[in-house]
C-alpha cells in the first residue's frame, strides 16, 4: 500500500510541476503580448485605442494575480507533498537520502518565479502609460 501512496505523491508532484510551469509560461507570454499590443495602441489617442489599452491592462492584472495565487498554491501543495514523502522516508528509515533543505530551496525558487512573472507584468503595465 505504501508503494501506491508513494507513486500517488510522485504523480501529484509531477502534476504540480506541470501546472506551475503552465502558470509561469502563460503569464509571461501574455504579459509580453499585452506589452506589444499596448505599446502599439498607446501611440494612438483615439477613444477606442484607450479602451483597448485599459482592457489589456485589466487582462495583465487578472492574469498575474491568478498566476501569483496559483504559484503560491503550487508551492504549498509541493510543500505538503514533500513533507509527506519525508515522513514516509522517515518511517522507512531512509530519510537520510532526502535532504529536507530542498523544501526551502523550492520556496526560494517559487519566489523567484513569482518575481519574474510580477516584473514582466509591471513592465507591461507601465510602459504603455509612459509612451502615451
Amino acid at each position: 500500500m505504501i508503494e501506491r501512496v508513494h507513486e500517488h505523491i510522485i504523480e501529484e508532484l509531477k502534476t504540480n510541476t506541470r501546472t506551475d510551469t503552465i502558470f509561469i509560461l502563460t503569464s509571461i507570454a501574455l504579459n509580453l503580448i499585452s506589452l506589444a499590443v499596448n505599446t502599439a495602441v498607446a501611440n494612438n489617442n483615439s477613444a477606442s485605442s484607450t479602451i483597448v489599452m485599459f482592457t489589456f491592462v485589466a487582462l495583465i492584472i487578472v492574469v498575474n494575480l491568478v498566476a501569483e495565487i496559483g504559484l503560491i498554491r503550487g508551492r504549498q501543495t509541493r510543500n505538503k507533498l514533500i513533507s509527506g514523502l519525508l515522513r514516509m522516508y522517515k518511517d522507512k528509515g531512509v530519510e537520510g537520502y532526502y535532504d529536507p533543505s530542498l523544501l526551502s530551496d523550492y520556496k526560494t525558487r517559487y519566489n523567484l518565479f513569482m518575481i519574474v512573472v510580477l516584473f514582466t507584468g509591471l513592465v507591461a503595465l507601465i510602459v504603455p502609460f509612459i509612451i502615451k
Partner: protein
Amino acid sequence: MKMFIRLYSNNTSIIKFILIPVIIILLVLCSLPFYPAMAQNEKTGLDILIISSFNNTVHPGQDNSIVIEVRNSGDTTLTNVVLSSNAPANWTVNFSPSSIESLSPSGSQVINVDIMPPNNSPRGDYNITLIAENPDISQAISVYAQINSTPGIWLIIGAIILVVVIGIFVYVYFRYTRR
C-alpha cells in the same frame, strides 16, 4: 605662275589650319569678360528663414504660429511667389499672405505661418516642409515639430495603477502564504 600657285596653296592651308582657330580663340577670349555679367543678370535666388522664436513644440488642435521671411537673394525681381507646404496628413498649414506678387532683389517679405495638427495627433516628431516657388525658382525649408501629450496625465494614471497592483500583489502574497 607655278610659284604663285604653290604660295596660294600654302596660304590656304595656313588660313585653314592656323588663322581660323586663332580667330575662334580670340573671339572666345574677347567674349569671356561678358559672361559673368550675363550670368549675374540672370541669377535668381530665394531664401526662407525662420525669424520667430520656435521651440519646435506644437499643440494638437491649436494654431502654432511661426514667422518666416522670404528673401530674394538673386538679381532679378521675382513675381508671383506662391507659398505652400508639405505636412503630415490632416495637418493644416496656413500662410499669411499666401503669395507674394513681387519681390525685388534683396527684398524680403515676412510671412506668418499657422500650423495646426489634428486633435487626435499622437505624440511624436514630425517634419513639415515650407515651400516658396515661382515658375523660375523654388526653395524649401524643413521645419521639425514635436507633439507632446498632456504632460504627465497618463504617467500619473499608470503610476497609480502600478502602486495599486503592487499593493494587491503584496497583500495576496502574504495572505495566501500565511494560510
